[in-house]
């Protein structure tokens, strides 16, 4: 192209920052939803409702941040919802089992947290190693582990529900319901995870390597990037974040069953895609994922608060949103 024949600009010239309209799309959609909600129901912007929406978004949100890294590196994880249920079941069983020895108190809860983190780490590592070392497609591996974890938690609960000891539940409850300065812990943790995730994605070699691998595994390999290690790390990170989400989730209901975390994987993937991350990898945006999560939960919330459309159509509207988001981002997606 002759465009390339113009001389290079003087090094001192400032780099132009282009406003990416495609990146703004989800933000505008989120703002529109907030305005819509506020107009339709005065309670929408109340402290109670906002806290409720954010706290419920936190589980999917924490997982979706990890999912952003996996998808950016060209992978996929369908197992996170089942994994969450399984880890919740393990955590409850472990805490109940340790109760006689450790009593109702911090020790038991910390032990439970350690179990959740360790299980998340192990589950993520297993997915990652099967995909990288085993050279099996991510879709297949995680489809398999999705079934395995879902079935394991059903088996652990013997088809019913695993419940945390009542006293322990009261002791552990503040982790979901309590907070600092009126902001509950799940929201704080979600915000922290998102902030760290954004920094890691944008500013660290790890984030850069994820995007490079997703864009072209060959180029990354020929650039001496440790492709398998980075890719495995994304799954381990996601597993750990699932563990953290479970730590926030268990005190909410104090139970786990076969229905726990159902379809979380799809909600997390949807949030990632709505946020502008490219499904086939190569480009990821953590803050976009956060916006995506909020969009999805606001849609549900608005439907519940208003009687315009039946809340039973929640899934349909979320589905339309996902498809619309991808259609609107097509321009950027192709360029990348």
């Amino acid at each position, binding site marked *: *192209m*002759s465009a390339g024949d113009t*001389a290079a*600009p003087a090094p001192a010239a400032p*780099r132009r920052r282009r406003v990416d309209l495609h990146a703004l799309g989800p933000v505008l959609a989120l703002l529109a939803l907030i305005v819509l909600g506020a107009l339709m129901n005065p309670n929408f912007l109340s402290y109670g409702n906002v806290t409720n929406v954010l706290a419920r978004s936190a589980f999917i949100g924490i997982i979706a941040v990890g999912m952003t890294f996996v998808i950016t590196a060209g992978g996929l994880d369908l197992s996170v919802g089942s994994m969450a249920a399984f880890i919740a079941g393990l955590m409850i069983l472990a805490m109940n089992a340790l109760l006689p020895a450790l009593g109702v108190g911090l020790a038991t809860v910390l032990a439970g947290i350690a179990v959740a983190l360790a299980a998340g780490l192990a589950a993520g590592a297993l997915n990652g190693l099967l995909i990288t070392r085993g050279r099996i497609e991510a879709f297949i591996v995680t489809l398999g582990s999705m079934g395995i974890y879902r079935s394991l938690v059903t088996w652990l609960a013997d088809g019913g529900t695993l419940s945390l000891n009542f006293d322990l539940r009261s002791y552990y409850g503040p982790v979901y319901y309590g907070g600092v300065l009126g902001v509950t812990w799940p929201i704080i943790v979600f915000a922290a995870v998102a902030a760290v995730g954004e920094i890691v994605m944008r500013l660290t070699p790890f984030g850069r*390597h994820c995007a490079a691998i997703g864009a072209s595994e060959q180029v990354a390999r*020929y650039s*001496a990037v440790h492709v398998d290690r980075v890719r495995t790390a994304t799954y381990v990170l996601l597993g750990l974040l699932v563990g953290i989400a479970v730590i926030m989730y268990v005190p909410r209901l104090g139970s786990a069953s076969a229905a726990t975390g159902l379809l979380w994987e799809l909600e997390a993937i949807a949030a990632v895609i709505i946020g502008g991350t490219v499904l086939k990898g190569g480009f990821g945006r953590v803050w976009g994922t956060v916006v995506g999560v909020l969009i999805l939960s606001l849609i549900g919330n608005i439907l519940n608060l208003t009687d315009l459309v039946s809340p039973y159509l929640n899934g349909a509207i979320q589905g339309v949103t996902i498809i619309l988001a991808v259609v609107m981002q097509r321009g950027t997606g192709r360029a990348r």
Partner: protein
Amino acid sequence: MEPAPILSLDRVSRRFGPVEVLRDVDIALRPGEIHALIGENGAGKSTTMNILAGYLAPSSGRVLLDGAATALAGPGAAEAAGIAMIHQEFNLAEPLTVEENVFLGRELRRGPFLDRRRMRNLTRDWLDRLECPLDPRLRIADLSVSDKQMVEIAKALGRQARVLIMDEPTAVLSRRETEILLRLVARLRDEGTAILYTSHKLDEVARLSDRVTVLRDGAVVLSRPAGDLTQDRMAEAMVGRPMTDLFPPRTAAPAGAPVLEVAGLDVPGRVQDANLSVRAGEVLVLAGLVGAGRTELAEAVAGLRHSTGRVTVKGRPLPRNDARAARRAGLVYMTEDRKGRGLLLGKPLAENLTLLALDRFGRFRIDKRAEAAALDRAIRGHDIRVADPTVPAGALSGGNQQKLLLAKVLLDDPGIILIDEPTRGIDIGTKQQIYGVIRDLAQAGKAVIVVTSEMAEVVGLAHRVVAMRAGRIVGELSGAAIGDEAVVRLAMGLEPRGAAA
């Protein structure tokens, strides 16, 4: 009296946004004539071809088909008019077979079903005409690059094109395959096909073409029967100045201990028992035919391909199959496949530049300021021509992509550098720059291994030549013994002529 042109452009201009890429281009393709379109990268060759083949519409000017102005609405319409174009990046569906690709979109039927047998036989006939004994049932993904090229040509044959447009058809072919292709093109010409093709290999252009059109900065600077032109004249018209020495002056071969030694290296099925060594400040050229195992050997040395054997850097053994260990030892490999393995075409220049040496820009946090400064240095130091440094790498022309790739590899400041086909598909001005870089690296005390299929590069760059054939190292030449004929004889497996060749 010349026959009337089948397809021609009449004062065609084309702009992309504010940028005028073509300016008042006239070109006429006549039946039974091979027309070569040459020019530097970015001169507008691809745009011209895309307009001729209906992929792009002109901004102004006319496309004439059989003397009548026409608007070719897309490649489909052009194909219906008997115009076929073979792109540099192939238009083949990798998971499908050869025959499925050749008949893609115009499958033969017998009733409601596909007539597989007839399609297979026809495909085989066309491949036979190309002297390319491929099984039509093979999957494209399993073919070599040159075989894919042959399939593309077979596809055009099947469409019985009156006009055949080829974008650098010989860039990826070996010498033997090039011969076959050139013979075939000559035969198509004799059958009355109008042929337009581009090539950076001027010797080929001089030999094959009947007419040469030279583009520079989007305008035709020369259009003449090939017989009236010398290769020097073509090169001068392309760059707009007399071409003095393409290669920098030769320096004395360095003496001293080797910094890289390869002993008994085997790449299963590709390379057997390779032994070689390079000194600091030396340019060693790996010569041989395409497929001789040169790329595989270079990749294996750099830890990018599974191999057994011993590789030592400055006396220290390098762990096998570990590209990061090689990098730490200061040994890097620059791939021949800049689009598939070298650059992330969708990513900005800076991210491409620093990908290999990213840890030099911060272990935990990338120093974006240093990164931007490195890009500025690379753009100036390597003369990468780009108006806006935030564009993705894919927006650069081929030559500028190659300079970016070179800058990326050199950013790691390697002591030993393996460069595979440094000038494939790039223009003569950029070639000259890259030769300068290679010579500068050697003078700065780096050990350089160059893999190349261009005889001029072998002779112009090498202190020493190691020739490979069928996966084995078959000979070595150094100093005054390096010459076209001697290298070819080694690569082809002939005995050197006389004792002191």
